[in-house]
């Protein structure tokens, strides 16, 4: 069976250890978490975890089964096979060295990147998009010299319920 990336959305009780339980369950059974995003929902007692993992449909079914066994897990959805939108966010610091300064400014204008901090010696950009858009941005950013970068896990939402 074909291996591919799956995005799994998990609603959990916002209890101590809940992330450790999920990470431990998957790690202990030999499944890898590629990306992870966690926050509370509109209800503080309930959190949403969005994680991605690479595997066959069969493997992902097993992962779902293992997650559903956990007492703190309320609901598990594989968003891969339903219509859903995906977003990641990166924050990038670019140093404004004498030789790259103009190049950076030009790239920011051309790509309509959002500058959130602009200083004499550096700028910080905030870029969001789906995985391919982020990968595209990173390819453009690389030659400019990335001083530091941080990238969130994927978050996702299905179009209809």
């Amino acid at each position: 069976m074909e291996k591919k990336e799956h995005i799994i959305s998990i609603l959990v009780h916002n209890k101590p250890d809940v992330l450790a339980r999920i990470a431990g369950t998957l790690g202990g059974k030999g499944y890898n978490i590629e990306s992870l995003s966690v926050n509370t929902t509109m209800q503080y007692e309930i959190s949403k975890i969005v994680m991605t993992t690479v595997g066959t449909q069969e493997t992902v079914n097993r992962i779902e089964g293992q997650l559903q066994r956990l007492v703190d897990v309320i609901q598990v959805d594989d968003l891969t096979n339903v219509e859903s939108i995906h977003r990641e966010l990166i924050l990038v610091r670019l140093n404004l060295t004498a030789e790259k300064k103009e190049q950076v400014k030009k790239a920011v204008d051309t790509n309509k990147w959002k500058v959130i901090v602009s200083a004499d010696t550096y700028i910080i950009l905030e870029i969001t998009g789906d995985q391919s858009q982020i990968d595209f941005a990173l390819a453009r950013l690389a030659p400019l010299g990335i001083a530091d970068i941080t990238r969130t896990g994927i978050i996702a939402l299905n179009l209809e319920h």
Partner: protein
Amino acid sequence: MKLKGTQILLKALEEEKVDIIFGYPGGAVLDIYDQLYKSNMKHILVRHEQGAVHAADGYARSTGRVGVCLVTSGPGATNTVTGIATANMDSIPLVVFTGQVPTGLIGNDAFQECDITGITRPCTKHNFLVRNIEDLASTIKEAFHIARSGRPGPVLVDLPKNVMATETEYDPANIKIRNYEATYKPAPKKMANFFEMLNSAKKPLIMTGGGVILGKSSELLTGFARKYQIPVTGTLMGLGSFPGSDPLWLGMLGMHGTYYANMAISHCDLLLAVGVRFDDRVTGTIETFAANAKIVQIDIDPSSINKNVAVDLPIIGDTQAVLKDLIKFMDEHNYTYEKSQRQEWLAQLAEWKEKVPLTYCQNGKVIKPQFVIETLYKLTKGDAIITTEVGQHQMWTAQFFPFDKPNTFVTSGGLGTMGFGLPAAIGVKCAFPDKQVVDIAGDGSIQMNIQELATAAQYKINVKIVLLNNEFLGMPRQWQELFYEKRYSHTDMTYAPDFVKLAEAYNVVGLRATKPEEVETVLKEGLALDKPVLMDFRVSREECVYPMVHPGDSISNMSLGSREMIN
């Protein structure tokens, strides 16, 4: 009513109708023990915390109720881990209370501090650290609910010392807990599917497992199998869920299953698997397991479906609810089966049974371990609760002691924990003081929790230990004989204590048999005594458990020992 944490704990246990605790005190739980001193709660002081968990486990397996233990923080807590993992693998409901250092010291590497909720996360169904006194009563209630509901399992509750010393309002009528599991929904479509599958099956077979015992559905399953004349095989955990004396019973399947059970699995065209999880010791090579059959699986845990074996019709729900629906559906649709076809299948099974029965050869001057078990069965007429340790003696028990009733065979199936049988027997005997409770043990296993003889002696818990002493770690030795050209690397246990003297040192009666003709006499004497007794049977040293499916082989391909390999 304002109460201290320690008082709330005991009140909450009364609410849960707990009648016995297996435990061991220490610094972090002395306040709780002080409260116990003032209460009427029965407490059994074990000699090692692992023993406390196995005893509570034995209590739970034999009664179907939640077993309870209480231990201190740090090493007290870590000593419970093997016991908890044992219960977790076999889905046994336990609540384990561990002491913890005061909340202010957690994380400081305090004396006897350890992160026991972290350590036991992968081997409990769920666990809790109670950080606030306000959460104590609801946490205990939730712990019991989680332990016994759904697919049961062990729950650990960690109790920091300062929390237990704090006061709060306690009102048992006003405790709300959340529900965590989906309720069972009847699926008439699936019943109809099953109906059709059974209708077209010529060689149906039932495989019963631990879920039938946990779901208290042995009677339903037995009635169903008898009514439609469907033969039954069982996993180790399923022994007792269908009467071992019934002609439809084929015995255990799997690595040390009977020839005819494994042949039935390989030839059946419909397999109804109830409360099983298709462990590798049961299936052999997955590709050839029940290769000719459509598989219907009834299980409460969706993650057990399609985990190891691809299933044609999964029915998710507790075995009792599903079997009830199934039987009702069959009745309403006046299901009948082709009698001549069934006769053909049953005749085939009978032929296999006759061709290769379970057997051994008791001749000469050396006691055969199987002979001891058969004699035990004969003398007790099967009216006993049997616990085992893990190894050859466990497999021989599964083969040569037929169990007619559920909850009468108490053994560590999934984890395979040596040292389980003696403390488990103590737990069983506490629940059933008038029943004959026998731990069938090996000389390796018994030494792993031998200290519990002191517990049995102190409380006059009159368990009987049938020690099949071959001065070897028998099962590893068997594998070394078969797969490592008899290189007996560190399995020789000749250097052992004199078990009779050891028993006597613990104030337990010690008896010994060295010749076949002494077996019955020793068993009779030991079983009749109103005292804990250890019976040391010096058995044939290099006896092997047969049939045996070699690891990684198909279960129809069995080695039968002195007889030839039969396909």
